[in-house]
């Protein structure tokens, strides 16, 4: 079986975001770019599955839609242990556009298990995985918190609103993963970093498509009201304020 891990390239999650061009564009100066945290975890899980020969995983490939500037993020994934990568050479302008680009290359060269994260930490879109599955006409399982292979059968734990389910799904399929899929992200070893330099990144050219959605502009959150401090000896006052001022209890 072959696993494809779709990764998005996002600002480090502690970045203090700022915007330029009249709030139309993210100010990228000084930003550290990382593999989207969920994608890092799904890559880790894919490699864990490959480590156990009885799972029969031949290769783990990374797919990414982005310009050449994002190659360091792809190399990071290769250093962690992916075998090779595909980069579709275009700006990832909207979720539908990204999913359609990914579908195009996957149709030409299919994979059995396709992993996407539940959201990119920058756009918080939660869209690409499901859209990709629909373009491919593959089944999809969302909110996946565990994925294992038993006797050639894929077994998945998914979170539903109000509980968990253990489900099975035939390959090929798309799993949209969340917390739990792996415990800690795997870290690149020195050897991994060395070998990553020679691992192949195949570059594909994009197809042309209309954009379904476009960002008009960004806004900053409203400043928080300053905190009202209450004497630790007098929590009764807090309860009164919650009742009468904030009206939340």
């Amino acid at each position, binding site marked *: 079986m072959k696993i494809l891990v779709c990764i998005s390239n996002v600002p480090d999650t502690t970045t203090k975001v700022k915007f330029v061009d009249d709030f139309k564009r993210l100010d990228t100066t000084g930003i550290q770019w990382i593999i989207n945290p969920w994608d890092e975890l799904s890559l880790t899980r894919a490699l864990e599955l490959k480590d156990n020969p009885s799972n029969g995983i031949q290769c783990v490939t990374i797919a990414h839609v982005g310009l050449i500037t994002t190659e360091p993020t792809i190399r990071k994934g290769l250093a962690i242990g992916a075998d090779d990568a595909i980069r579709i050479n275009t700006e990832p302008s909207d979720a539908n556009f990204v999913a359609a680009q990914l579908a195009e290359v996957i149709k030409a060269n299919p994979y059995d298990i396709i992993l996407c994260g539940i959201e990119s930490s920058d756009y918080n879109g939660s869209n690409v995985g499901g859209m990709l599955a629909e373009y491919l006409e593959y089944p999809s399982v969302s909110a996946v918190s565990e994925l294992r292979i038993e006797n050639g059968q894929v077994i998945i734990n998914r979170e539903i609103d109000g*509980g968990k*389910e253990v489900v099975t799904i035939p390959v090929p399929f798309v799993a949209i993963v969340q917390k739990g899929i792996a415990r800690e992200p795997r870290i690149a070893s020195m050897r991994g970093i060395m070998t990553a330099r020679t691992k192949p990144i195949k570059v594909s050219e994009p197809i042309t498509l209309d954009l379904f959605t476009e960002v008009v502009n960004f806004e900053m959150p409203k400043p928080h009201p300053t905190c009202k401090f209450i004497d630790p000896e007098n929590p009764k006052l807090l309860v009164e304020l919650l009742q009468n001022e904030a009206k939340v209890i």
Partner: protein
Amino acid sequence: MSVLVFTENWDGKFKKLSFEIVSYASKLAEKLGTFSIALSIGNVEKTELERLGKYGAGKVINVSDNLLNILDNQVYSSVIAQIVKKEDAKVIILACNNTGKAIAPRLSVKLKAGAASCVSKLPDSIDPFIVFKKVHSGNAFANIRINTDIKILTLAQNSFELIESENHATIENLPFQIDATLLKTQVKEVQKLTGKILLTDADIVVSGGRGMKSPDNWAPLIELADLLGAATACTRPVSDEGWRPHEEHTGQTGKIIAPNLYFAIGISGSTQHIAGVSSSKCIVAINIDKDAPVFEVARYGIVGDAMKVLPRLVEAVKEIKNK
């Protein structure tokens, strides 16, 4: 033309969340000069379906079939897409929960409809159609224009008020042919969280961080939660350490919640934690360090040792509740 809202049920019952999205869909329909249709899938009694009417749904369509007992993303999206076409729906609303996030993207491709997730208010502009949603995990917001004829939105939880009216909906039971070959998901086991207030549904959440010091110190926090009818939550290191169950992990990589009231007790207020709770209406922080970043997002704060403050707070709540 119409606005279609997919209302999921839980063992035949709707939740506050269902009524929020119906209220939203109905207000949006009003703006568009049309009406809203609620779509319910699965076995729901007529009296329960009628409740959707109170929140403004002009019509309720009910589809039930044994094949729909399993949430299969392909089956569900194919059913909804067919009803969208039948009812000429131009906007489709779903909840921004696991189910909504699973189905909306598939519908988007099927219907060539632009999708925006976790929208948090009514669009300011209908033509062009511009929606507002949080990005960068709540550190910013974006106005997004949807260019397509059909639009799909998921609505963020607790972001829209319930609007009740005297409205009555007509109920239509729709016989439906479901393509059984689409059903690929097989459920082997279900574990329902019962008897507890679900974290994602709770109006009040009491949450503890590493400042709680040990898993043995949680009793007063749980007592406070019980008194307030609140759910309990925690930070990532607390669930990683196994002090609390993983379901309670809140934040960017855990649950994203938006209760009316959030207690952050012994929580420093890292950006990744706040990302999961920044939509809370009111945050109360209890922390021994007056410079903890959590106080920057809190409306009320107590600087003190949680072990001393919590029991006093429990007593204060008891006093008020007994009045």
